[in-house]
């Protein structure tokens, strides 16, 4: 299938930040079935990320505050090249503390051979990065425009659901020249240990992912589909084909999977694709595209 000119074997991708800090791992995940991989979000300089504990396992999902650890774009370019050598479609996720920094890292990511660049405008737990520069439409538009000017490959803007209107952010991304929007990143959350009388995460705040956020992600994609013309990539709590189909019918052209790699392993991509094929056979769809946004046609 085709997404902004990218050829994908199937509509599933590995979401940014999950098993994608090293080339070897990304290649393993692609072999296990992901149609493409999105890299860990990478910035100009190396970052260690937050101290441990940086994850809390919940019954409804995962709370994480990795804090965007990454080896810096210079070092990471080699990882991207190594992934490309194996023929894997790779989308480079980038972070930056300012529009110039983001644009610079985006350009280096594209130079390294990434098939597309995804701006992470939505990490809810890293100071001066992510949400902090992606929470107003003005910023989103400005930042997209600056990055778009520096790269030839498609530009994706990954948006935050921690807002009163994600469709305004999506419109801004479209205005700024983004070729697609990715929704959603994690919801800002916290878990407290009453016994320790403190937040569990060293960073106190973290991002909630997994099944808990699927209804929110589906709603966001549905709203964005009504607001923009560019494709939407759905992410948030997908672990089965049925979950993916909710996003697709809400308007997603492709989906990303993160947390389900924890619960179901890298085999989750193949399993989702198999589920989707079975559904299409039973319900008489010949291509995924025919289902994209289908839930908008029939108003209940």
């Amino acid at each position, binding site marked *: 299938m085709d997404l902004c000119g990218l050829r994908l074997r199937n509509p599933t991708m590995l979401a940014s930040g999950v098993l994608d800090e090293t080339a070897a791992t990304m290649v393993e995940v692609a072999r296990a079935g992901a149609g493409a991989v999105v890299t860990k979000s990478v910035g100009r300089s190396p970052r260690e990320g937050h101290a441990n504990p940086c994850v809390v396992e919940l019954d409804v999902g995962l709370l994480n505050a990795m804090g965007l650890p990454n080896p810096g774009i210079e070092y990471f370019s080699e990882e991207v090249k190594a992934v490309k050598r194996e023929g894997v479609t790779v989308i480079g996720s980038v972070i930056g503390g300012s529009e110039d920094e983001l644009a610079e890292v985006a350009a280096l990511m594209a130079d390294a051979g990434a098939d597309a660049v995804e701006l992470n405008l939505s990490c809810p737990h890293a100071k001066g990065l992510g949400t902090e520069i992606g929470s107003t439409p003005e910023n989103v538009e400005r930042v997209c425009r600056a990055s778009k000017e520096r790269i030839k490959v498609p530009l994706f803007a990954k948006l935050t659901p921690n807002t009163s209107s994600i469709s305004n952010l999506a419109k801004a991304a479209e205005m700024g020249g983004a070729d697609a929007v990715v929704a959603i990143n994690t919801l800002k959350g916290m878990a407290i240990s009453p016994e320790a009388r403190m937040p*569990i995460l060293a960073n106190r705040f973290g991002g909630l992912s997994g*099944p808990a956020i699927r209804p929110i992600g589906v709603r966001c994609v549905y709203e964005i589909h009504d607001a923009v013309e560019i494709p939407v990539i759905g992410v948030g709590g997908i672990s089965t084909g049925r979950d993916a189909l909710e996003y697709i019918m809400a308007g997603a052209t492709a989906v990303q999977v993160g947390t389900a790699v*924890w619960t179901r392993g890298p085999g989750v991509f193949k399993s989702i694709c198999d589920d989707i094929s079975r559904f299409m056979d039973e319900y008489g769809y010949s291509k995924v595209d025919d289902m994209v946004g289908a839930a908008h046609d029939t108003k209940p």
Partner: protein
Amino acid sequence: MTPSLRMLRVAEHRNETPWTKTIRFKDTVDARPGQFVMVWVPGVDEFPMSISYMGDRFGITYQIVGDGTKALSKAAEGDIVGIRGPFGRGFSITGKRILVVAGGAGIAPTAPLVEAATKKGVAVRLVLGAKSSAELVFENRCAAAGAEIHVSTDDGSKGQKGFATGLASSLIEKERYDSVYACGPERMIVAMTDICRKKGLPMQASVERIMKCGIGVCDSCALDGKHVCTDGPVFDLEELEKFSELGKTRLDRTGRKTGI
């Protein structure tokens, strides 16, 4: 998707050596030798530790190396520590006669491994290496479990002088083993891998890498595309041989490969 964090009370905290302590918890763990837990010292750090006592009042045995373990070492009986896990793949015990080679910080999973093996009726030879006799851990415990113990110390203060690998190698020359198990520093594991490959002996070893999530999502414990937290920490010879990074590089907290 089950939350695995439990806040447990310390039942007992004792010194094994001046730098090594064991904590037993007022709780049970259902685990296999070689599996590990993430240990949260509230307000300080969370880090991986092999389980050194299984079942009831399970425990960990650790060396004091930095801020996290130093803070842990101050936990008194009744204090609260957070435990996630057990995680990872443990040892699988195969064969009738096995050789276990353990040294330094890697000693923790050895004792439950030895206990599980002798309980199954497997004959165990244990090579226990340490810098000096004062730093030997679990010698009596493993002997009581029925293992035949061979001690080596770097300074010769007890047993054979030299490295555990030398002693292990000479035992392998003398006697046939169905399988070899290694817990210890990475250079020891690499050395044992060489020996076992040459002798055509099956082998398993427990490997350490930086762990952040412990559950296979963050990639910080990556070793040539495998993950120590979920695919390991125990790997078999076939896997160990394929690792180009073993004994050479590891990821630092930013995800850069650095020399070991």
